[in-house]
């Protein structure tokens, strides 16, 4: 079995939609197909988490796609610091979509995830207000996660962190990289993209066209 890559999935989809080899003029553009693939894979990941993982009393999104980002920049923000998420993760319970954030060289000590506004509450509690020296981060807003301290102003300033997100981020892979898709998932996502695109209307071909035109396709021999 060939390894599953972006190109592999796109070829399968285009072949089904075009009834063979697609021509250069095909309306089914590879990058459009890829964007739909990404959406559908992420939707499927979420349903897998809620329908398969959670009912088994497991909360860790095991077996789902974890996108790894080795060095996500940290910037100073007001009296704290923050990082822009490299991709928008799947929305899971308790912010589980942001699966792991840690220092680049200390992966076994992940930062502590906090819910929005929880840090203010913790600060008012004498016993735990410094999180026992640990670093926490609050759930994302505007695409950023906010750390409980300003990492850039520590004794050893930190400018980048390590992150794992539950998401299929196609930008992390080129056309020929192996995708972290389970073998059983490939057929389903291909079928769903084909079903989605199969009903798209023919493209407009002219500026002054008042009616839809039949797409120009290479005649079948």
């Amino acid at each position, binding site marked *: 079995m060939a390894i599953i890559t972006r190109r592999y999935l796109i070829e399968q989809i285009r072949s089904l939609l075009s009834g063979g080899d697609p021509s*250069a*003029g095909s309306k089914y*553009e*590879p*990058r*459009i197909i890829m*964007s739909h693939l990404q959406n559908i894979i992420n939707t499927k990941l979420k349903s897998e988490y809620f329908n398969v993982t959670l009912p088994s009393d497991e909360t860790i999104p095991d077996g789902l796609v974890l996108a790894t980002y080795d060095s996500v920049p940290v910037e100073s923000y007001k009296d704290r610091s923050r990082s822009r998420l490299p991709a928008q993760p799947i929305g899971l319970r308790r912010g589980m979509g942001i699966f792991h954030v840690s220092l680049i060289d200390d992966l076994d000590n992940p930062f502590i995830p906090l819910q929005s506004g929880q840090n203010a509450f913790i600060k008012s509690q004498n016993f735990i207000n410094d999180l026992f020296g640990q670093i926490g981060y609050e759930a994302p807003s505007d695409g950023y996660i906010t750390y409980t301290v300003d990492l850039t102003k520590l004794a050893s300033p930190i400018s980048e962190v390590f992150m794992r997100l539950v998401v299929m981020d196609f930008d992390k892979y*080129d056309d*020929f990289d192996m995708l972290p898709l389970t073998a059983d998932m490939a057929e389903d996502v291909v079928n769903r993209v084909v079903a989605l695109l199969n009903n798209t209307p023919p493209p407009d*071909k*002219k*500026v002054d066209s008042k009616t839809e035109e039949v797409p120009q396709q*290479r*005649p079948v*021999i």
Partner: protein
Amino acid sequence: MDLKDFHDIVRFFLNKEQGGWFSPEELDSMIDRAQWWFYSDQYDVYSKTQKIQDSLSPFVTPFTFVSTSAGIVQLPIVETVKPCYEHLQSMYVQYFDNKRQIPRTNPIKIISEDELAERLESQILEPTISDPVAIQKGKGEFQIYPATTIAGKGSYFRRPVKPVFVYTESGRAIVYNQGLSTQLEWAGQSINKLIIKTLQLCGVNISDSMIISYTEQKDAKDM
């Protein structure tokens, strides 16, 4: 088929039907018009069947290109110089995959001018060096986006060369010079149709219902 044989067959029908006289130059012009007519018919249905594909295959011209720094590719369009561009068949970019150290290709889609602005601003389909698009600016002239130097390959249909019947006159006799003549380039299977189209252009009344229906039936079958 040798051009002289072609001329002889046409003359045979011309003499039989109307007894008129066409000089070799006039016949060459008629044949050239007829071959354009046929070329255009065949182009409309190109690749519908292998037979039709074969008939235009002599005119398929592969090319390699390196666009200018402004992304322009100009194919040859001087009619008297072979090859002369007529219709684009395909164009693809060649780029190097640095990660795997191998060359790769990607087709270049020719889009309409009204689609261009949308494309250039597209978040998903913005043209890139490895996945560019192009618009046609003029005959044989293509503007590639991103507008930069890009290398690639492709193929186009060139114009069929105009046949030239070269001869000398010896008294009243015409002495054909095969070596200096420019022959037709069509494959044998297309010659009969060319003859019929030439005769039609020469004014031979092929409205004879039997001939017309026969040729139409043949065409329909071929397509």
